[in-house]
């Protein structure tokens, strides 16, 4: 027997890491380091104020600047971000949605300054607004207007940057919000249909060019731990999309009908308990999207093992990149054609998924398509319920999560022992002040008349229905800031609040014994209090990941509380006001953005100012161990992190907090 060298027949996928934080300068050095390590594409994470089109000195940006990504407020920030990186040689993926046209305009303007040929730019703008309403929460404008901007960006790039992927339709976030494979398939494909129909109806793309538009649509998909089913899901995506392209859009060229997709594997299932096990989870999830050649991902991004604890460091990201490189270059995976061809088992599963997904798509189309199904809350409600079911299964032990509800005994881990703070990236809090200074400095230096004139022109063009990217490039060059652009757009189109999906009617599911126990306790407490236990559930700050808050709200209802759920993006003042008017017994806050040290004490302070400082606050989210003492000192009664998965226990503790606060011995 001879040992053979690896002879990959097939080109590997693009390997990416999702990155960017603190400042344009720091992110730039990180990108250059990653490129040197052999990474072949860039993926930019923007901070929340950028994603919501606010400037660093906006009141709503407080505590969020540079926290979850890089702040880009001006063309200068973009230039710094790409300093010594030749834009025309890069394949750049930008996770940007509501203000996608603006960030693309800054990118184009920067490329032009570098002397690049715009026609040759390659990369992706995520530009998918539907999943923002359903899961991620960083939407700004109403659905119809948002879909208009998405389609205008597509029209612009198809005509001016033909190698650009103008939209990356995401099923990723739907799975994070609890979607089952069938829902992922259906909602995502219905979304793509809506976008393409809108572009077609606009009349700005000729009939001959339309197949090219279809060919530029790409997808961003999630892969969960049930990797055989996930593999089938990917194959069904591929076949259903092919059929939609062929039948609905009459695309003849099979190359343009390919389901092109990138992947980040599931973060939802990563655990804070025994976090080293997450490496195994990541690899199994990875298998689902690379094993089958016919439906293999075009690019893959793997989360880091410690994501459930905090922001990954450079080293954690390197580890995830290495996992990919081993799969591509050490194993023999790339030497074969599709290894599932002819498998009856796989075919049967595919058929089942496809039928169910088609049924859901038809249902959405009957409602009038994706916009009505968003506005009436149908899809969101489906996700919230499905997520509640997942949590119930974990609680009851029907769904095993190793190290969480089974095999929980563990040796102390050398990876996490010592200071927990050292195993995650921490963001220097001086970043915000620095960024505000950079921005103000820029405003002082720029030609204000020129910027004001550009904004005025922009206003007129947008109202007249001109293409949003084209109009935005003028502003980018004239030194308009992200916040100014956002303000102008808000004035024209207004801000939207999406249905929360937390329904008062749905969810009379059977009570488990544990739930019943909490329910009885609540009934007893309520009768002593004189009125039913009332809780306010709210999310302060710009972070739109509402999954946790929604599940707490649904659970609190199911155990018998009156729940005021106010949804996302609330200011501390707003939360205090609601708590007061509603006369709640307890306030539950959820925060995942890392801004807890800024925002949570601020809520407490505002409640005190309104004279309701005696109402207890409990907190849930990604809160590093080292920050908890500071929050307890600020008067927070309980803190829950991803490792507290038992919602009944959380509810029981909240009941206890209220009882103690009212001097009641239960």
């Amino acid at each position, binding site marked *: 027997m001879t040992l053979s060298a690896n002879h990959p027949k097939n080109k590997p996928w693009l390997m990416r890491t999702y990155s960017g934080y603190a400042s344009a300068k720091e992110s730039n050095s990180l990108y250059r380091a990653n490129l040197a390590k052999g990474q072949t594409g860039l993926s930019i994470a923007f901070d929340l104020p950028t994603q919501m089109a606010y400037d660093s000195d906006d009141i709503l940006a407080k505590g969020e600047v540079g926290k979850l990504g890089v702040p880009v407020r001006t063309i200068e920030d973009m230039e710094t971000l790409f300093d010594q990186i030749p834009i025309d040689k890069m394949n750049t993926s930008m996770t940007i949605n509501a203000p996608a046209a603006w960030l693309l305009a800054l990118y184009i303007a920067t490329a032009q300054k570098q002397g690049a040929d715009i026609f040759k730019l390659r990369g992706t703008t995520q530009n998918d607004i539907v999943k923002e309403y359903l899961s991620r929460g960083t939407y700004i404008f109403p659905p119809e207007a948002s879909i208009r901007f998405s389609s205008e960006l597509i029209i612009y790039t198809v005509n001016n940057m033909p190698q650009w992927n103008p939209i990356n339709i995401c099923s990723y976030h739907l799975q994070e919000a609890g979607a089952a494979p069938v829902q992922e398939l259906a909602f995502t494909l219905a979304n793509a249909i809506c976008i393409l129909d809108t572009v077609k109806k606009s009349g700005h793309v000729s009939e001959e060019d339309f197949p090219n538009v279809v060919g530029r649509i790409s997808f961003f998909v999630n892969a969960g731990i049930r990797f055989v089913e996930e593999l089938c899901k990917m194959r069904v995506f591929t076949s259903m999309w092919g059929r939609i392209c062929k039948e609905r859009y009459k695309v003849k060229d099979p190359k343009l009908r390919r389901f092109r997709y990138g992947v980040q594997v599931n973060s939802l299932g990563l655990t804070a308990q025994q976090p080293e096990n997450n490496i195994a989870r990541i690899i199994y999830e990875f298998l689902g999207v690379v094993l089958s050649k016919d439906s293999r991902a075009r690019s893959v991004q793997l989360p880091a093992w410690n994501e459930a604890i905090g922001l990954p460091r450079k080293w954690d990201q390197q580890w995830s990149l290495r996992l990919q490189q081993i799969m591509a270059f050490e194993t023999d995976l790339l030497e074969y054609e599709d290894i599932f061809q002819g498998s009856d088992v796989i075919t049967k599963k595919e058929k089942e998924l496809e039928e169910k997904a088609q049924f859901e798509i038809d249902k959405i189309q009957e409602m009038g398509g994706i916009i009505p199904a968003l506005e*009436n809350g149908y899809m969101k409600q489906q996700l919230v319920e499905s997520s509640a079911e997942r949590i119930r299964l974990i609680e009851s032990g029907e769904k095993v999560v190793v190290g969480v509800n089974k095999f929980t005994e563990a040796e102390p881990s050398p990876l996490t022992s010592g200071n927990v703070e050292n195993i995650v990236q921490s963001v220097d809090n001086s970043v915000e002040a620095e960024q505000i200074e950079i921005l103000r400095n820029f405003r002082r230096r720029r030609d204000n008349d020129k910027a004001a004139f550009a904004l005025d022109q922009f206003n007129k063009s947008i109202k007249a229905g001109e293409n949003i990217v084209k109009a935005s490039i003028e502003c980018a060059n004239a030194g308009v800031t992200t916040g100014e652009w956002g303000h102008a757009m808000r004035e024209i189109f207004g801000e939207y609040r999406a249905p929360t999906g937390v329904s008062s009617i749905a969810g009379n599911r059977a009570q488990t014994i544990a739930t019943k126990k909490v*329910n009885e306790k*609540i009934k007893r407490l*309520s009768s002593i*209090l004189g009125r039913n236990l009332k809780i306010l559930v709210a999310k302060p700050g710009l972070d739109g990941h509402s999954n946790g808050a929604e599940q707490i709200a649904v659970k609190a209802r199911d155990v018998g509380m009156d729940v005021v759920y106010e949804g996302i993006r609330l200011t501390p003042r707003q939360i205090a006001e*609601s708590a007061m008017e509603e*006369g709640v017994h307890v306030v539950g806050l959820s925060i995942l953005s890392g801004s807890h040290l800024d925002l949570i004490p601020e809520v407490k302070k505002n409640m005190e100012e309104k004279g309701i400082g005696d109402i207890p606050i409990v907190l849930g989210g990604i809160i590093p161990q080292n920050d908890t003492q500071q929050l307890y000192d600020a008067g927070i009664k309980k803190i829950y992190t991803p490792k507290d998965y038992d919602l009944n226990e959380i509810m029981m503790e909240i009941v206890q907090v209220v009882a103690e606060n009212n001097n009641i011995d239960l």
Partner: protein
Amino acid sequence: MLQKTIILICDKLLFWRYAKHFERHNLLKLGLDIEEIVGGDKKSIAKALNLLEEKGDLAHKRNEKLIDILSRKARPERHIVGITGPPGVGKSSLTAQLIREYRLRGKTVGIIAVDPSSRKSGGALLGDRSRISHDFEDEGLFIRSMATGSHMGGLAWRTRHCLTVFEAVYNIIIIETVGVGQSETEVSQVADTVAFIVQPGSGDILQFMKAGIMEIPHVLVVNKADQKTLAAKAASDLMVTKEYSESELKGWKLNVVMTSALEGWGQKELADVLEGHRNFLNDVGMLEEFRHRNRTEWVISLFRERFGEFGLEILGGEERVRNLIAQEDSNNSMRRLQLLEKKLMGQILSESKLKV
């Protein structure tokens, strides 16, 4: 049964003593300042609402007193509007539109938004607050969400109690009902003007006709009227319905108003029509008559809550009780309730003496 009643009486006597003791105390003991409430201090308003929502005999006595004081402070110009209609027609977004309109007209607004409680757990999701987009810093606006609780209807079980606070503070009070069950009938017993909302192309109108509640609303609203063709059809259906509707209100012309929250129009006309209805009631001298009737029903329902059908029977049945209340010249509901209770005690005592 008699034994049970006697126990109840002993109970009552104890509470009378408590009540007397209470009389000597000012509301300040509860941390409440009536002047602050009437002046629109939100913290005090919220606190009063918290107390009024409480159950139990202790709370009952205290709240009688509180309601008594509040009722005397009721703003003469107040207008109580009930918003009802099936789930999903856009009651909350319409309410938001109305808030903006009223605030533009310089009127203060109080909102009571009711959501259903789960029969099983008793819990409720109060989602209207997030759906009614509003300026949370507005001092002239107050929104309170309530769950129906054990009361399985369109209103919360203490909506009427809480209303007394709003009546003492705000120019306009909007009650948004659950929209199912007995919403229409119930809201008509607390509101001056009832608006029934439908959406185009939903079959709501047919349901509405079938339900036999056509005589209740004073204003009909076709929301989401941006769906032009369907909305026109809905409006014409409603006009037909109108012909059959036998409003108990002679001389009031049932209006159909078209609104669109999406495109932001119709709220002006709706506010005008609502105001028109109140003016009409006032002009023909029926506003006070309606309110008086509603207060009577409230007293009966409170009496029933405490003493049940049995209590009503002892006093000779619901109709007789209604007459008894009518004979009292007092407009004070709590006073009337107390008089009824005293009558009941008297009746029971004399009956048990006879038996002994």
